[in-house]
Each structure stands twice: as C-alpha cells, then as structure tokens.
C-alpha cells in the first residue's frame, strides 16, 4: 500500500532559518522533511511519510492572515496530501495560533485530517481545541520527543480514518465532545485517589470540568391574563394514545405537536404518557394531571383566560440531552410566537 502523504507545517525557528529577526519570512514549500519532521517520519515507519514541509514566519502568518492561509492551502493542495500536520508549537504563542489557524483552514478547505500540538496554555489551544485535534505538549522544545510520541500515532489513526478514542487515551486536549473509554481503575478507586490528592493539597484533574451554566430569567408576568392565549408545553411525555410519533421513553430525539381543538378533557382512552422516568399509572389514568387541558377549558369558559392554544407541544424530558431540548424549543417557540400565543404553561415531571 502506498504511504500516507503528509504535509508538515513549521515556523522559521524550527526550520533553522532564524529567530524573531526572521519571523517575517513568507511561506516556502520544501520537498521532504525539515527539522522536527525527521522525528515524525521515523515514528511513522512504513505507514506514512512527510512529502513536503511548509515553512512560514510567525509574524508574517499572523499579520497577513488571509494571504498566508491561501498560499499555504495551495501548497498543501499541490502535494496531494492525505494528512496535514502542524507544529508542535509548545508555548510559542504566535506559532501556536498559526498552527491552529492553518490546521483549521486546511481541514475546512481541503477536507483532509489535520493535527497540531502545543502547550495547554498556548493561546492557540483555547482558540482551536474544539475545532481541530490538538495534542497537549510540554511547554518547550525540550518536549519534542514526547510530543512526537503522542502526535505520530494519533496522526496515523486520523489519516486512516480510524475511530478516535477519548482525549485521555489519545492525548489530545478535551474538545467539548464527551467520549467513553475504559480507565485502568474503577470509578470508586479513582474518586479516592482524587480525594487523597485534594486532601493533601496536591494537583488533581477532574474527569468532568463544570460547564458554564445557561440560566434563563423568567419573563415578566402576563398583564392581561383574561385575554391571553395560553399554550401548553410539557416534558412529561403526554401523547395521544398509542404514541403515534413514537417519542422515545428516554433520550427523546423529537417532540410532538398535537391538535386539541374541541378536546375538553384528556381521558385514559385518548391520551397517555410516553415518559419512562416515572410510574405512568396516574398519568395514564388521567393525562390532565400532567397536561392540564380540563382546567384550562374551564378557565376558558369562565373567562379567566382568553383561550387555550389549539396545539400542545410535548416531549419526554427523561435523559434527553439539553442540546436536543433546546433544539426542539427553538423550533416550536417560533411557531408559538407566530401564532400570537401570549404565554406558555410548561409542565415537567
């Protein structure tokens, strides 16, 4: 089998051209390996080969971004590359940003797998770790051997289209995509190890960094409820009997929109819950307990509310990803707005 064709991107310093005084050199394409490429080639063995190296000054790249990107992409394209490798940049800030930028651009423009490496505090890491695989390296070039050891196998996996494991296994920086893997110790033992470190004031690494939380402030109260159109929305899984759209009992992938024109009361014969997270007996006996259609019809009649909106929206909250729930709401909120609904009663279970 032909070797995987890799194009390697490095800066003026690693190409032995010079330091800061040479940081303004324009992109240059050289055949074969230059500088750290040799170590990569060795690690690739018979499987892959660096066919060309692109060298670019860090200042030039960052000060002439669009032009530099275009030139480098054309160079990579000219080599029929299967894989693009950038850096590692260690703690060199402009180099790291350049590696991240060009790796991201090559991935988007040429659609080939890309990989770069840098120190976790390199500004390029935060900017690009969610868009391209970045291997965490030491903070200086003294860590080159270690970096190559982590980057080369991952580059091969990416180039071959193999399944990429969790960040902790493969050595890339966590990229916001949670992936399962089997650790060497069971969870309880890991918890105790972590606690012992925390107690001793030593550094420990959490397995799940807390996210920034999305909190929604409630809207102001409805001023004129007697003339308001009220809609019902639920994550309690109330659906017409038989669950016609097959909404899942957990981890719902969809929501339902159902017409309740003329429906005065939800009965055991007409509605039920699809929700798998609670004992459905009481909801199935009388679905109004979760989706209070009967009471709102009474209020409608008594003039306590303007009217009940013709459709209700429903899904199952049980184990459903927040991202999916947000997606559902983004869609049907627009419909509710277009239908001039004034307020929504959102019931959960």
């Amino acid at each position, binding site marked *: 089998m032909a070797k995987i064709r890799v194009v390697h991107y490095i800066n003026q310093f690693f190409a032995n051209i010079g330091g800061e005084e040479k940081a303004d050199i324009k992109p240059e394409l050289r055949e074969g390996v230059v500088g750290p490429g040799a170590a990569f080639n060795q690690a690739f063995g018979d499987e892959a080969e660096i066919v060309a190296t692109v060298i670019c000054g860090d200042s030039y790249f960052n000060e002439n971004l669009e032009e530099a990107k275009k030139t480098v992409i054309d160079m990579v394209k000219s080599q029929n590359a299967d894989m693009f490798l950038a850096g590692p940049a260690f703690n060199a800030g402009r180099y790291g940003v350049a590696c991240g930028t060009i790796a991201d651009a090559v991935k988007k423009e040429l659609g080939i797998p890309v990989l770069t490496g840098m120190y976790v505090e390199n500004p390029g890491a935060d900017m690009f770790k969610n868009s391209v695989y970045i291997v965490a390296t030491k903070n200086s070039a003294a860590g080159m051997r270690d970096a190559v050891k982590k980057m080369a196998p991952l580059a091969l996996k990416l180039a071959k289209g193999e399944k990429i494991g969790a960040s902790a296994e493969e050595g890339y920086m966590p990229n916001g995509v949670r992936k399962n893997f089997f650790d060497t110790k069971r969870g309880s*033992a890991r918890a*105790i190890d972590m606690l012992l470190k925390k107690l001793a004031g030593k550094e420990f690494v959490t397995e799940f960094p*807390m996210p920034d939380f999305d909190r929604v402030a409630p809207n102001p109260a409805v001023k004129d409820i007697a003339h308001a159109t009220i809609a019902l929305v639920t994550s309690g899984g109330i659906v017409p009997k038989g669950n016609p759209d097959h909404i899942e*009992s957990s981890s719902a992938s969809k929501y339902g929109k159902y017409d309740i024109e003329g429906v005065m009361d939800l009965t055991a014969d007409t509605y039920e819950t699809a929700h798998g997270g609670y004992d*459905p007996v009481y909801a199935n006996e009388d679905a109004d307990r979760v989706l209070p259609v009967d009471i709102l019809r009474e209020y409608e009649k008594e003039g306590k509310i303007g009217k009940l909106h013709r459709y209700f929206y429903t899904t199952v909250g049980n*184990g459903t990803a927040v991202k999916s729930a947000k997606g559902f709401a983004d869609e049907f909120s627009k419909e509710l707005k277009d239908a001039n609904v004034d307020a929504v009663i959102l019931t959960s279970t």
Partner: protein
Amino acid sequence: MRKLEVGYIDIHDIQFSNESKVENGVLFVDKEAIKKIVLEDENIKSCEVEIARPGESVRITPVKDVIEPRCKVEGQGGIFPGVISKVTTVGTGRTHALRGSAVVTTGKIVGFQEGIIDMTGEGAKYTPFSKTVNLVLVMNPIDGLKQHEHEYANRMAGLRVAAYLGELGKSVEPNEVVSYETYGVKEGMEKYPNLPRVGYVQMLQSQGLMHDTYVYGVDAKKIVPTIINPTEVMDGAILSGNCVSSCDKNPTYIHMNNPVVHDLFAQHGKTINFVGMIITNENVYLADKERSSNWTAELCEYLDLDGAIVSQEGFGNPDTDLIMNCKKISAKGIKTVIITDEYAGRDGTSQSLADADPSADAVVTGGNANELITLPKLDKVIGDLSPIDKIAGGFENNVLEDGTILVELQAITGATSEVGFNCLSAR
C-alpha cells in the same frame, strides 16, 4: 470497635439438581424449590428459572434487579433486615457471600427503565453482570396488576430467592475471609490521630413512583439523612426497588458490594480514617432537597470530616441534589469528590449534567450514558426482547434486519455506575 467478617465462597458455576447445595464452588439449584418460593406471591402468575453463564451467547432483558446470595453466619440479625429478616441492626459478626453468582429478575416488563445483560459480545464489556453466573427468574404477573404492585412482587421474589440460596453457603468453608472494622468517634480519633477523616455520602434514589430505595424496609423518600455503619450495607440493609435507567441505578448487588465502601476500607488506617457513611435521598420536592442537603452537610461537619465522597443515583432531577450536597459540604471546608455519570447526547456535545457549580471541581464520571453501542444478535434471549425499543436507551426501529441491536448505553444494566463499580469513564 465493630467488626464484620465476610467469608467469600467463590462460585464458578450454577447447575440444576434435585437438591440445592454448594459444593466445590458449584451452586446446585433445585428449580422446583425456587419456583415455589417465587410463586408464594399470588400476584405472580408464572415463573421460569434459567441459568446464564459468562461467555454464553445469552441476553437477559428486561432486567429489573440483580442480587447477591448472602447469609448471616454469626452475629445479630439476618440478611435483608426489615424486609426478609427481622429489623435487627446488622453489620457485625460474620456473613457468607456466594461470590461470583447472582440472582437476576426479569420477565414481563415492569416500567420502561429495565436493562440488558449480555453474557458475551460488546454489551458484556459494559455490564458487571456478564462476569457473574446468574440464576435468572423469569416472572410474569397476574393480569391487571398495577405497575408498582408488579415491581413489589418482583423485588420481593428476587430477595426471597437470594436469601434462600445464600443460606446454602452457611456452613461452607469460604475461599477468602475479609474483616471490616469500624470505630466509634473517640476510638477512631485515638487510633488514627494523624489520618484525614473521610466519610462517604451515598445518595439513594427516592424520586418516587417506582424510583425507590429501601433502608431496613423504610422507603428512602421518608428518611432524613442519617449515619449508617458501612458494614450494614454488606448485609443487605439497603435494597433497590427502582426502575431508574438501568445503567446508573444501583441494583441490590451493587449496594451489597458498594465499591466506594470497599475501596475506602482498603485505605482505612493507611491513608485515611474511614469515619463512616451518611445516607441521604433524592426527593423531588424542593423543600425535601433543601432539608436533605442541609442536613447532610451538617452531619459531615458533625463528624469532623476532612474529606467526603458523594455518590449519586440516577440523573436529571437528582443532579440538583448532587450539586446542592457538593456545594453545602464544600462550604463547610470539607474537601469533596463527587461521582456521577453523563447525558451528553449521542454525539457527546451536549451539557452532561442538569446542574453545575464551581465547587464541584473534583468529579469522577461513569461515562456518557447516551453513547450508542451495537449489540450483536445472540442465540438465546432470557426474558422478553419485545420491549427493546421502548426501554430507556432504546428507540424506534433499533433492531436491525440482521438481528443486531442499537441502544444507548443507558439500556445496559450497571454500565455507567455512579458508585464507581466499573472502569468506564469519559473525557
């Protein structure tokens, strides 16, 4: 000092026989005797008894509970106190366990949230019960039985059978005897004056409506946080009565073999002083959540803990209890580590928990329960495969033409254990 010795009798096979006994590591089972025990309950119409061994091409589903057969040999009380035995406090003396074996309850599905145990293939890697020899009770209820009554009937039948089998090990010489010692407050302080004081906070599933756990027979919804001796759980003081997603509920087996308890005991007297265990609940009302988390934090302070491990059970709603506990215990100046699992969506890009707080800076995860896995077609199904698209983690048309099944990890019994029973994690 309080001491419990657990004698582990290694069971490497279960076989049917006309006499129930344990001999040379084989658990012989009289099928008819088992059926009789199960059918004592008039709400159970019929029962089949099957054996599932590690490596066999067998799938058990929908799995409700898994229980380890144990019996009390010396000391006060009996196994499953307050439920099968009298309510006497347990956790001292000597207990025998038929290690490597388990009773698994299945049959007609009770709720949506029962699980799958595959004895071989991809699914077997994720469930701890592919490694045990399982005696499987396939139970069908009488017609018209309400779900919570059905749950109760299945739960009790499993416990009765496990207690019956456990008794068979009473006079058998164990392969290993492990001694678990705990101390009173003063005694512990004197014995280990320089070791950090560590406690274990176990959150018990108590959302209600078949999301229940029992402590000495008391529904955990109705308890306030309390201190329990960690050896008590080894005698079955805490039981599962719930139908939460099978991946992260604690089957009774896991309560009896709680890995946090065992691993803390392993460090007890070496790197830490394992002071004790606090159990609390996960009720759905805000006032209950506030009360329980307030009181849990108070108890941690009262025990002068330096560090605490908090484990969760279930997901979503209980995430708020987990974060409240973590926040309030940390605010007392106690170093805290929490164990949970994640619902990050099938592609892993969604928010993993329903609540968050900066104090939760030390988290152990049992993995992303939404991740999809493909289960091979297996030769034999014990139970009923038909709810496979409806159980939590299943979805429409998830059985492919060649018989392979796509499910979220959620559907695999014990896969993302939040007491850290497994090596599975996520990043």
